[in-house]
Structures are given as C-alpha cells and as structure tokens.
C-alpha cells in the first residue's frame, strides 16, 4: 500500500489548499444560509416586501399620483429618489432599489382625463429595470392593476370637477385595491433546516468537493507520469495495475472521508432533520451520489490532464462553469442549452433530484422513481468516468 500512503502524504502536504477551500466554503455558506433562511418561507406570503421600489415623483402634490405611490407601498418598500438618472442607475446597480418607477409631471391629471375620455390615450410611466426580471414583472403587474381599477372606478364619476368627487373616487380606488383574496395556511410544513441543507449546503459543498478532488487527485496523477518517478518506479516491485488500483482506492476513500466529514458538519449545523426526515434522508443520498460522480470526474480529469495549467483550468474555470450552469448558486434548474452542456457532470442531476425531493411533503412512487433515475445517472456517470480513466491508464501502459 505504498502508493496509497504516498497519496495521503501528498494530500497532507497540500494543507494550505485544503484550508483555503474550507475558508471559501464558510465564506459562501454563512451569508447564503442567512439570506436563504429569510427567503425560504414555508408559509405562502404573496407580499414581496424584499422589493424596494425607487420612486421619482415629478408630479408632487397630485392626489392621484400620491395615491398610486401609497398603493405601491402596501406590498413593496418605497424609497423616494431624486430625479437624477445617474444616481438612479447607481442605486439600481448597488441594489439599494430593486426597480424604479418615474411618475412624469402631470401624470395624475392625464390619467383621470384618459379614464373619462375614451379617445385619450393612457399616460405612460417610465420604468427602469433592475437586475431581477421577476421583480420588474411584479411591479408592472401592480401598476397595471392600479390603472385598470382606476378606469373602472372612473366610470361612475360624472363630474370630476365637483368638490370632493376626486377624493371620493380615490377612496373607492383604495378600497377596491385593498381587498385581497384570502390565503389558507398550510397545516403541514416542511422543515426549513432540511430545505437549507438541500438547496444551499449540499449544493455549495459539491462545488467545493469538485475543486478539492481535482486539486488532490491531480497532483499525484501528474507526479506519477513524471519521467523520473516512472524510472524509479520501474526499479521497485510495484506493478502498474497495482499502482493504479491503489491510486483509485486513495481517491475513492478520500472522497468518502470528505463527504462523511461534511455531512457530519451539516448534521451539527442543521440539526437531526437531515437524517430523521424522509426528505432529509433523500437529500443526503443525493449528495452522496453526486459526490461519487464528482470524484469520478475529478479522477478522469486528473488522468487526462497533460499539465498543471489544464488542471487549474479544470479546477477554477470549468468548475465555476459546471456549478453555475447546474444552478447550484441559484438552487434552480436553468434549463435550455446551458443545462444540456452541464449534463456531463453530476451537480445538475443533484440539483434536479433535490428540487423534486423538496417539492413534496410526502414523496409518491412516481417521484421516488424519478429521483432514483437521477441517482442512477449520477452513479453511472461516476462509474463511467472511473472506467474510462482505467482504459486510458491501460492504453498508456501498453503504448509505453
């Protein structure tokens, strides 16, 4: 077991790399955990309070425009912004506001005139979009709801210039917009800690595993191909196949140790739900299969890697692409061509499996079968990468 021992000695000699990777993981997981704990609501709440609407009101003093702002303020947080485009774009870039609504001068007057005269066109509100399209769509739908209800309320107004008539109409507008449909609350709730483990911890961990495996398997793999090392090896009793088997055992055992340690850390971090609940157990299994597949991919890349430049590229560039395209950073399946490209690695299958697992409080047979398929794909990918690597190693031995 000389090669196996050497493998672990080489890993220990790279303790700086391991420490830095643990540091990166903590740097990612602590803020992400905090942010996602606020976002992963287990009770349905349609008010998107996290949206900050920046308002540039050029129609100050107009009761209709003020009424519109008040309405937007009911479901989003309002921030008044000065009329400076540079400042507005800056606030959007720095996410001080999620989206901006610019109410032009005379908007209120133009809106009531359009509501009372079918031949007049609706006045337009200028919008500045932020970084998140879904927030823009939400604000657009609020504006659309306000204007359509305004038109309906204006039907019963026969003379807007009559004193108090506009106030009366705006009151009716506020009442008509305030009556939301009722929400029946869920009686059975998912465990938020388990959700966080499945959609944050285990996915981010896969990214770190990938980098760790590439760096840990790559160094010995490159060293074993060095001419001087091979000459020295020829003088020993170790055969090529024995060396390769020991290297394989080293890689798989190291992957298993890393996975076990991080799962233990998750257990301490997220409580026992990840082992006691059905959802948690499936998520742990999903992480296991994904890790196996990643170790296979890392083994393969280490085997084919011609030099350290290629290895760093696989570790940093390709790793970032795989995780980004798999939706690990967003906890969603991105779909389209991006996910097709990423299908050669296990993270995308892990994301898909986890999404099915967390989508259900009690898994049906069909869902279990879908999840099992994803697990099998991850297992098959891992085995395939190991098998191809062994074929390459054998080919190299024969050609030498």
């Amino acid at each position, binding site marked *: 077991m000389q090669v196996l021992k050497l493998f672990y000695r080489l890993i220990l000699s790279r303790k700086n790399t391991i420490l830095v990777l643990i540091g*990166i993981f903590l740097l*990612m997981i602590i803020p992400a955990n905090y*942010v996602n704990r606020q*976002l992963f609501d287990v009770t*349905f709440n*349609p008010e998107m309070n996290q949206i900050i609407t920046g308002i540039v009101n050029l129609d100050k003093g107009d009761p209709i425009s003020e009424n519109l702002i008040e309405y937007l303020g009911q479901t989003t947080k309002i921030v008044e912004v000065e009329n400076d485009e*540079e400042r507005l*774009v800056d606030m959007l870039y720095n*996410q*001080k506001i999620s989206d901006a609504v610019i109410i032009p001068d005379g908007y209120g007057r133009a809106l009531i005139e359009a509501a009372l005269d*079918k*031949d007049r*066109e*609706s006045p*337009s*509100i*200028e*919008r*500045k979009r*932020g970084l998140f*399209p879904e927030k823009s769509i939400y604000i*657009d*739908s609020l*504006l*659309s*709801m306000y204007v*359509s*209800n305004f*038109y309906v309320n*204006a*039907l*019963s107004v026969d003379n807007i210039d009559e004193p108090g008539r506009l106030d009366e109409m705006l009151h009716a507008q506020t009442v*008509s917009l305030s*009556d939301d*449909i*009722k929400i*029946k609350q*869920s009686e*059975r*709730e998912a465990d938020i800690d388990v959700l966080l483990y499945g959609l944050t911890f285990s996915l981010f961990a896969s990214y770190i595993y990938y980098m760790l495996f590439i760096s840990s398997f790559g160094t010995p793999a490159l060293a074993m191909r060095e001419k001087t090392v091979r000459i020295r090896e020829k003088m020993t009793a170790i055969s090529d196949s024995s060396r390769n088997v020991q290297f394989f055992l080293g890689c798989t055992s190291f992957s298993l140790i890393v996975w076990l340690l991080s799962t233990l850390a998750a257990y301490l971090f997220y409580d026992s739900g990840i082992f006691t609940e059905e959802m948690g157990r499936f998520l742990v299994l999903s992480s296991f299969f994904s890790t196996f597949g990643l170790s296979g991919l890392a083994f393969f890349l280490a085997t084919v890697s011609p*030099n*350290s*430049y290629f290895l*760093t*590229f696989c*570790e*940093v560039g*390709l790793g*970032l692409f795989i995780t*980004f*395209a798999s939706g690990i*950073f*967003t906890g969603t399946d*991105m779909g389209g*061509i991006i996910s097709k*490209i990423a299908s050669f690695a296990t993270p995308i299958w892990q994301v898909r499996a986890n999404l099915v697992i*967390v*989508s259900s*409080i*009690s898994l049906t047979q069909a869902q279990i079968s879908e999840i099992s398929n994803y697990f099998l794909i991850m297992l098959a990918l891992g085995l395939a990468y190991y098998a191809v690597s062994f074929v390459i190693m054998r080919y190299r031995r024969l050609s030498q």
Partner: protein
Amino acid sequence: MIRHLTKYVGKANLLSKDGFLLSIILPFILGLIFLFAFDSLLEAANLTPAKIVIEFKGNAEEKKDVEDFLKEMGVEGRLTDQGLEPITEPDDEDYLIYCFGDDDVEALLDEGSINAKVWIDNTDKKMDMEIYVPSNKANDRTSFMAYQILNSYAKSYRNLIKNTEVLFAQAMAGRDMSSVEGLVERIKDGIDTDDIVYTKEKEGINGFTHFIMATLGFVCLYYIRVGVDIVRRNEAYIGALGKRLELSPVSKLLRVFASFLSMGLPCLLATYLLLLCYWKRDVGLSLEYSRVILVVSLGVLISIFMGMAIASLFKLSKDNVSVVNFLIPVLGALFGGLMGQFGQALSTWINENAPLLANLNPANLVSRGLYQLSFYPSYDSFYHTIKIMAVYLAVLMVLTGVGIGRVKE
C-alpha cells in the same frame, strides 16, 4: 537585446511542453462556453404555467364569468394520476392550467403536482376567493404568479360589479350614458401593460446581462496565473529557461519586462478576440468599442501585474502558487457577482460596505466599468472606474518593480 529576449521567451513558451500556451487559450475557451450558455438565458425568461384546481360555488352564469377569464389566462386541464394535465398544449401566453372540481387534491398538493387549490364563491357575483398554497410551493414563482392573476381579477371583477350598480342607479337618475359605453368597451378589451409603462433600455438587456459582464471580469482575472509565471520563469531555481535567461547581459527587471511583452500581450489579444465574439452575438455588451477595450485591457493588465507583484514580493512554494492560481479567481468570481443571485447580493454588500475591497477585485472593476458603459447616462462614473484601475495598475507595477529589484544579482 530586449527585442531578442522577447522573441526568445515567446518562442520558448509557445513551444514549451509544460502547456503554458493553455493558460492563454483556456480563459478564451471558458469565455466562449459562458457566452454560448448565456445566449439562451438572455432570451425572455419563460414561466411555466401554474396548476390550480378550483372548487366553485355559484350558478352557471356566475361560473361562465370565471371561465371566460380563465380561458384568457390559460388552458383547461384534467386531473389524472400524474396530476393536472392540460387538455390542449399551453403556449407562451398561457399562465394557468386549471380545472374545476371538488375532488380531494391534498395528496397532489403534498407531492407538489399542483400549485394551489382555489375556492371561488361567486354566488350573487360576490367573487370571494380563498387560495391554499402548500409549503412546498410557497417559494415557487409560479405560485406568486397564480395568486397575482387571481387577486387582480377578483378585485377588478368586484369593482366592476359595484360600479355597474352605481351606473345603473345613475342612469335611473337621468345621467347620459352615451359617453360611458365607450369607456366600458375599452375596459372589456383590457389594458395592456405596454400601454401604461415604457422603458428606454435596449431590447434584450435584462438581469442576465450582468452575468455577461461578470464573466468578462472573471476571464480577465484568470490571467493572474500568467503574471505569476512571468516572474517565476525568470527565476533560475525554477527551470532551465530561468537559468538561460539569467545568463543574458541585461538586468532582471528588463528580463521580466521582455517576458511580460511576450507572455502578457497574447493574453490581451486573446481577450480582444473574445470581445469580438461577444459583440458578434449581441449579448448586451456596449458597442462603444474603444471604451470597452480600454476597460478590459486594464482588467487584464491589472490581473497580470497582480500575479507578478505577488510572485515577486513573496517566495511562493508550489502549494502556495496553486493556492494563488485558484484562490484569487474564485474569490474574484465570488465577490464579482458571478455566483448567482447570492453572489450578486454579496458583491453589492461589499461595494456598499467595503469599497476598498471591491476596488481591489479586478473582476468587479471590469464588470462595473462595462455596466456603467451600458446603462449610465454619462461617462462620469465610467471614467471614475478607469481612474481607479489606472492607479491600481500603477501601484501594482511599482510593487512588481520593488519585488524584482530587491533581489541583488
């Protein structure tokens, strides 16, 4: 001599078997893969329709009002063992798949096959609605969409019924209704959101454009490895090339400069080639070519000189070289907003609370500069970023000079 050294080092690296050429080509390939992948994301985000089961109370006429609305917003479905299946295939304009029925759908809700159960009581046209969204769909954006559509409809419906009653009373009291008829028709036709809001922004630019800019920032930062190599390949103890270069009759500073010319310039060329591909695909990158080239060139040079400064100031072991080569690009991507929405939030937090750290990240500076070019109304902010980058580059050059010069030959 410098010319000779530049040629010699360039040729030696080009033909080198250790794969140095890959450190120039691979970031370019990575940039292309990201471009290819983002292309599909830049198209409008498609929402899958929300699946809802409706338990209805009311007579046929009252039900027809709801059905008419639902037909506008989606397609009808039928309950099967697999959940709610659409009868006709929904298109991009369909936001809901719905069916009426009072079946017990708790199991379907629990397994996540449908988004919500909705109770509608339209007896006497009162349009009372109640919605149940299970906890497993509480964060699903299609659930929010279904709620928003139904809520909007319920409000408008109740409001219209109430106003119809008022109008009827007004007509009885002698109000001339000729002008109202046109207004009612307009409301029935529906008001398009595009008629009430407008944006000046370029078509095709959306939240994902930011990732394109972050990607270019990351590609620039990736060249830090070339910077580390420029210095290390001039060290005699590293390899044969270093030993041979040391024999040349010029100072180490000039040797490193020659290496920078032969190894750094190809990085710039590869990045320009990548920019060309980004422009060709029209992924929202500003078309102000010279300014884009300026900001990206500064990004590449800062990254190279950052690597050179680190390698010349600190004696790096092999393990530490590998740490620098992967740690800085990964941290740059993390703090530069490339790691999803969480990464963007982190990047914003750093911009806000630790501006110095944000300005130390070349990936962040490049993506910020590109964003300012695309979205800001004037060049003030852009040139401010350029000034920061120029000063940063000058500081790194000085640090590299100090690091190289402190070792007496």
